[in-house]
């Protein structure tokens, strides 16, 4: 075992220990959404124009969040954190699929989505839909977004939560923008531990 792996194992063991002796669910850093009757699926286009749904990612732990590429601040920060989270998980990072859904399909073309997500990690996937499809997916995931026409262009105010799905494609957690990559990684480890 490498030192890093043993450290991870130790951290995982600690999580289990903290969760109590009766094997009850671990205390997640995120909000537990297990069993929610929303956020069940999406139907969106990848940069190649293929329709993707949650079923395509069975076996993967999906991190899903919404944003737009002209966003100078929250979105790159969320993508950087997703990359850090994946790296913190070591080999288990391969079991994570990061999905970035645009709330600004008008400006975020498939090509732009591809280049943008790849700039953070080649495995990250940018998905989009037309205006109607974007409305639908936002509603399903209780995502608020609104175009704000102020100044010379427009900006898009939007929810900045990250949703986590388990390997069976079930919505499990919502993590906040203010939480760290370490907190994200700990929750993913806990979820992986549960199903192993």
């Amino acid at each position, binding site marked *: 075992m490498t030192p890093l792996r043993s450290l991870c194992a130790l951290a995982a063991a600690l999580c289990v220990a903290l969760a109590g002796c009766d094997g009850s669910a671990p205390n997640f850093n995120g909000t537990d959404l297990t069993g929610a009757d929303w956020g069940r699926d999406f139907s969106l286009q990848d940069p190649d124009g293929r329709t993707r749904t949650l079923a395509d990612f069975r076996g993967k732990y999906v991190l899903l969040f919404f944003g737009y590429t*002209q*966003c100078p601040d*929250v979105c*790159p920060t969320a993508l950087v954190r997703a990359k850090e989270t994946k790296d913190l998980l070591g080999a288990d990072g391969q079991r994570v699929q990061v999905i970035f859904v645009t709330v600004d399909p008008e400006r975020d073309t498939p090509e*732009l989505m591809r*280049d943008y997500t790849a700039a*953070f990690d080649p495995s990250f996937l940018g998905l989009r839909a037309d205006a109607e499809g974007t409305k639908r997916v936002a509603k399903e995931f209780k995502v608020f977004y609104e175009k704000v026409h102020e100044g010379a262009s427009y900006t898009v105010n939007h929810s900045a939560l990250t949703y986590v799905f388990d390997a069976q494609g079930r919505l499990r957690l919502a993590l906040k*923008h203010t939480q760290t990559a370490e907190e994200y990684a700990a929750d993913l480890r806990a979820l992986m531990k549960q199903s192993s």
Partner: protein
Amino acid sequence: MKRTLIASLFALAATSALAQVTVKDPWVRATVPHQSATGAFMQLSSPADAKLVSASSPVAGVTELHVMKMEKEIMKMRPVTSIAIPAGKGTELKPGGYHVMLMNLKQQMKEGDTVPITLVVEGKDGKRETVEVKATVRPINAPATGGDHGGMHMKH
């Protein structure tokens, strides 16, 4: 790094001759092709109360001052008419707060490039001065933290 140092020195040198406002660690987040907007970040300081009232850059068709706020997990961004630079305390334009928004970009912002930005600052007496800044383009995945708060060097 060296380039940034020179850029910072340049910015400081340009500043001291013209205005009291000084700029440290100015940087711009890199873009991918066809991305039309990005943010510029920097540390502003002034011995007397001042405010940043506008910015412009030859790389952008439109440049605005913006503020980002999180309200109940919703990211809100809007233009502001000015950004206060309190005497002695200064203001940091950084991810999670204020930034200079470069829009309608005329070219891709590539890591390591230098972006000229002209700031217009206003003193308490209403007198306006311009500050020329050379901002360095940092990688698109640069972390949210700005430069350091101490010296002229940068941490990576």
